[in-house]
């Protein structure tokens, strides 16, 4: 079977713009959760959010696009640009078209709300009889807008796909991208996830009473919900031999992924955590890795009372007695829950952990929950030699995905 590697990465989230800023934030165990400024949050249970500050169109973006791109688009564009540059594919497919054998570059993106924030603003102005926003805002409502934009801006002429399986969207996007490489349907795939904060998600999670009033505290006894975040993480995936021949950097190997559905409830996970367990088992099976080989787990770890105890239970079933020696952490304690982007952001956290020989922390964990009794790397990151890691992403509707990554050789 073809080996799939990550040859480029790009990042933007509340910890900063660029992979280096994210790596520094993770290593320094910085919580980037603040008071939301994007829109008025006074009426909500929580005003906490992990917001990207000073988000503005980059200078390389054509003026007509710069005027109408949404936050979600911008996050994806900025991360994708960095990913392509770091993979040595500057200018993406457009520069590749001129080469003797043009590369088939696909785009696979996980997302859940697309241009919702712009659509909300359009409706708000209309309802309040304010001067109208341009109607072009409504063109950004379909989720496919961002993936089409990425393909046209970066000249990607291969297949394109948007994956929307709630909070597992971008974990699935990476898995599907890897499948495209293995099956030969694309030479390289620009893949990842993007989601910006918007009123709909804030109101929705508020109504579900799923937002903690203080920055989320995954696995803590006092945890009372999640904190919403925004961001994007994008990767370039390609076959190992192709990346090697191009002289591209190999950041990590994408070993495999596993998917399951709870088939249970619109928001709640199965009380027996069977779906979460099955996704991890399938991911290990697809990767040819045994449970004992896992050195670190980047948990879904939302900070909701139910998720963290059920995820812990699934991990204990999967690992057996080894569970107590395998560190597990939730990087959502630093960048919030970025929904459709979460899986990709957390995959990047894993890549950075593998490359930087450290374990990112669950920075807000202070009072352990007796029902969550694993090593969650509380408060501060710590040095560790790790080789094989697993990342969990669970979405509403019982969408479970686990991915397995390995350090580059």
């Amino acid at each position, binding site marked *: 079977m073809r080996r799939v590697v990550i040859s480029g990465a790009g990042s933007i989230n509340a910890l900063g713009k660029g992979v280096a800023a994210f790596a520094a934030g993770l290593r320094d165990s910085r919580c980037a959760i603040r008071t939301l400024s994007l829109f008025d949050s006074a009426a909500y249970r929580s005003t906490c959010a992990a917001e990207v500050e000073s988000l503005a169109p980059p200078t390389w973006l054509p003026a*007509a696009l710069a005027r109408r791109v949404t936050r979600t688009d911008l996050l994806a564009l900025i991360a994708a640009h960095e990913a392509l540059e770091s993979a040595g594919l500057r200018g993406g497919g457009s520069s590749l078209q001129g080469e003797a054998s043009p590369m088939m570059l696909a785009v696979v993106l996980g997302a859940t709300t697309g241009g919702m924030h712009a659509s909300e603003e359009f409706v708000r102005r209309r309802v309040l009889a304010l001067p109208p926003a341009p109607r*072009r805002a409504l063109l950004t409502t379909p989720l496919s807008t961002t993936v089409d934009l990425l393909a046209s801006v970066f000249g990607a002429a291969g297949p394109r796909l948007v994956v929307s399986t709630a909070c597992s969207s971008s974990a699935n996007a990476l898995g599907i991208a890897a499948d495209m490489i293995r099956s030969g349907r694309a030479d390289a795939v620009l893949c990842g996830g993007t989601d910006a904060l918007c009123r709909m998600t804030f109101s929705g999670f508020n109504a579900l009473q799923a937002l903690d009033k203080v920055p989320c505290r995954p696995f803590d006894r006092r945890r009372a919900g999640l904190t919403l975040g925004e961001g994007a993480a994008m990767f370039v995936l390609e076959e190992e031999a192709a990346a090697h021949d191009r002289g591209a950097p190999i950041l990590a190997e994408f070993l495999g992924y596993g998917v399951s559905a709870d088939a249970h409830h619109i928001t709640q996970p199965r009380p027996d955590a069977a779906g979460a367990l099955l996704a991890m088992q399938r991911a290990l099976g697809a990767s040819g890795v045994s449970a004992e080989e896992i050195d670190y787990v980047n948990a879904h770890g939302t900070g909701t009372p139910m998720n963290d105890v059920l995820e812990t239970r699934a991990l204990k079933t999967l690992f057996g007695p080894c569970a107590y020696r395998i560190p597990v952490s939730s990087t959502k304690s630093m960048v919030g829950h970025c929904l459709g982007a979460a899986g990709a952001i957390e995959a990047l956290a894993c890549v950075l952990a593998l490359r930087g020989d450290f374990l990112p922390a669950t920075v807000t964990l202070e009072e352990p929950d007796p029902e969550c009794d694993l090593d969650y790397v509380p408060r501060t990151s710590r040095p560790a030699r790790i080789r094989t890691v697993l990342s969990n992403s669970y979405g509403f509707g019982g969408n479970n995905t686990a991915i397995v990554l390995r350090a580059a050789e």
Partner: protein
Amino acid sequence: MDRNELKMQLKHLLVEGLKLDGVRPESIRDAEPIFVEGLGLDSIDALELVVLVEEKFHVVIPDEEVGKLAFASIDALADYIVRQQPGARV
């Protein structure tokens, strides 16, 4: 309406309706192409502008051919609007 006043209104509509931050309405030249060159507007801006003009000046842009001629420049657009007014001599 005075023709110069109409052209000024069109320039304001362009800048405010399309949110052209940093462009002064007075700086738009009457004979300059509205799309592609100059202001860097594209086909989605064109859609927006057609609807704005139709609403504000009660005219109809029936198809792309008419639209291309009518939106060639501020001069052309002012001509088109004047010609479409009830009682206008064609």
